[in-house]
């Protein structure tokens, strides 16, 4: 039976990523491990303030020891979270959601499309793919941000750019004079890539408005609907498929999602 008791955890490290986002490294107390999958989420709990769902940004392999959460200060809980420092205690429930179907995609080309904060959940997939690089063929990474200062995980992204094992393309909607990469919306990056549609698996996470345009581009390249995966984020409140906030049509994203293939999502009128 499920109850709402969170597991106690400790903040191990806090890193400022941009002016709005911080990366928190968390360790569960009592030697517990999270055992999550890429694109799953946890509910962070601060007693007296409440709970909020946050995607896990670190890959499963590290999960035994610690995990990372990239948090934008937006609401009550995330603002309070930003005031925390090393050794502070938080509560964790989860991990929840189905996560990315990594078992099914071995031996394929992986196309990852991350818009804005979408890089936070996708970083768990990217790092997983890089750690088990041999399991996958080509890895293509498209990253979009509003402006250069909003780009998350800047050092890592630069490393990925230099890494020959991964083809990275980055764009911003509005550049500043120092910007040397692409400019324009993320769909513009599809001009620069060629993919083999028969063996490509796509993973998309971004702001709600982004999905349909990116899906259109990927479908135009000939990728199968069932091979395009979307991570849809809603206001997950309970994580157990009851409270109703994350329901889209007949499914609860916290249980049956947040990762859906486009083949599934297309049948849900409220999904996209």
């Amino acid at each position, binding site marked *: 039976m499920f109850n709402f008791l969170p597991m106690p955890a400790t903040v191990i490290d806090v890193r400022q990523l941009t002016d709005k986002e911080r990366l928190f490294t968390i360790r569960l107390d009592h030697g517990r491990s999270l055992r999550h999958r890429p694109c799953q989420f946890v509910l962070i709990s601060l007693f007296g303030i409440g709970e909020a769902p946050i995607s896990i940004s670190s890959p499963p392999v590290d999960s035994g020891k610690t995990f990372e959460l990239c948090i934008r200060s937006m609401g009550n809980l995330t603002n309070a979270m930003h005031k925390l420092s090393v050794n502070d205690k938080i509560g964790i429930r989860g991990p929840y959601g189905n996560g990315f179907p990594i078992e099914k995609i071995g031996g394929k080309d992986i196309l990852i499309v991350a818009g804005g904060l979408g890089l936070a959940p996708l970083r768990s997939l990217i790092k997983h793919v890089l750690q088990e690089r041999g399991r996958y063929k080509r890895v293509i990474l498209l990253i979009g941000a509003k402006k250069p200062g909003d780009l998350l995980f800047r050092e890592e992204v630069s490393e990925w750019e230099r890494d020959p094992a991964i083809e990275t393309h980055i764009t911003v909607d509005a550049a500043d004079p120092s910007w040397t990469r692409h400019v324009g919306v993320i769909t513009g990056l599809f001009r620069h890539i060629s993919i083999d549609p028969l063996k490509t698996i796509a993973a998309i996470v971004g702001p709600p408005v982004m999905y349909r345009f990116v899906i259109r581009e990927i479908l135009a390249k000939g990728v199968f609907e069932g091979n395009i995966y979307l991570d849809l984020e809603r206001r997950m409140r309970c994580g157990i498929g009851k409270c109703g*906030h994350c329901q889209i049509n007949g499914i609860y994203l916290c249980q049956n999602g947040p990762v859906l293939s486009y083949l599934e999502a297309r049948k849900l009128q409220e999904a996209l």
Partner: protein
Amino acid sequence: MDVTIEYHHIDRFIRCLLSHYDVIAPLAKEDRFIFDRIEDPAAVSPQYDTTLLPPVKWIYPNNEVLLEFDLRDITKAEVIAQGRPQALTFVHPCDINAINLMDEVLAEEPSDANYLTRRRSTVIIGYECLGPCKENHLCFDKGYHIAYKGFDLFFTDIGGRYYVHVATEAGREIVEEDGSFKKAAYDDWVDLMKARAERKKGFKKVIRGDLEMLSHHLKEAYHNEIWDIEGKKCLSCGACVIVCPTCYCFDVSDEICPDMEKGVRTRRWDGCQLRGFCKVASGENFRKDAAERVRHRVFKKEVYLKKRFGRSGCVGCGRCIDYCIAKISIIDIFNHVMDRVRENV
């Protein structure tokens, strides 16, 4: 085992219940009825139409405490899942059917410990309505005017006395402890059959067409104009979902004691008809139009729950119609969809 109890013994029976249970019973309040905890058997009014809130809310209460926590030490948080023994009495079949569905929804894994704990310590005493309580009810269309399970005892008024079906061990214990019950005789049974035959005549169908097909027709009507029409009327007050006996959406919030040391995490009822229900931190609202929300309510009852649990989530109690200040009627919506299908055939 079936028994009977005479009208004038009901007081004694309730007094007997009171010695073991918190007794929750229908009682008159202003011009309506409510379910409330009683101390005095005389307060009970077994003859009632539909209560404002359904009895299931005593198993799924608002502002239920989930956790107690200590702001100074996170490890001191404790789960609160209590169930005082309670007896829900004189519960109509529609509301029993609603509880049956709630049991199934909340027992589905991951199951809800708070609900299940409370449910396990609850006995339910059903009460057969001998006709439709109001015009706005579609229980008969849905077959939810009869409850086949979900009660420990089930009372039917057969004139001068009640015929009592004893359905469970807990029910048997109650009956055996209280000396007011007599073993049902053949004549009692004949009177029961007569009462039920008479009862059946009172009900009439309010939905035009084959209800079995409703879920299918609704799916076809996803883009029907009815949602905009009803959405324009809807004030998004959420009354319909708060009075619904099969609505269980909730939100979780923390409250801190004035000592600033301890606090509680509570669950309060939430409703998909409220404007901010699907709003996320970024400001995006995934169901921002009233039309979408009205459609979601109807689909949740008639399509989504039906798909998951094999039966409709609307038990036909009519509360959402009674308490809608904008006069939105789920009966009118169903009929509109059914009529539209017939026009197109």
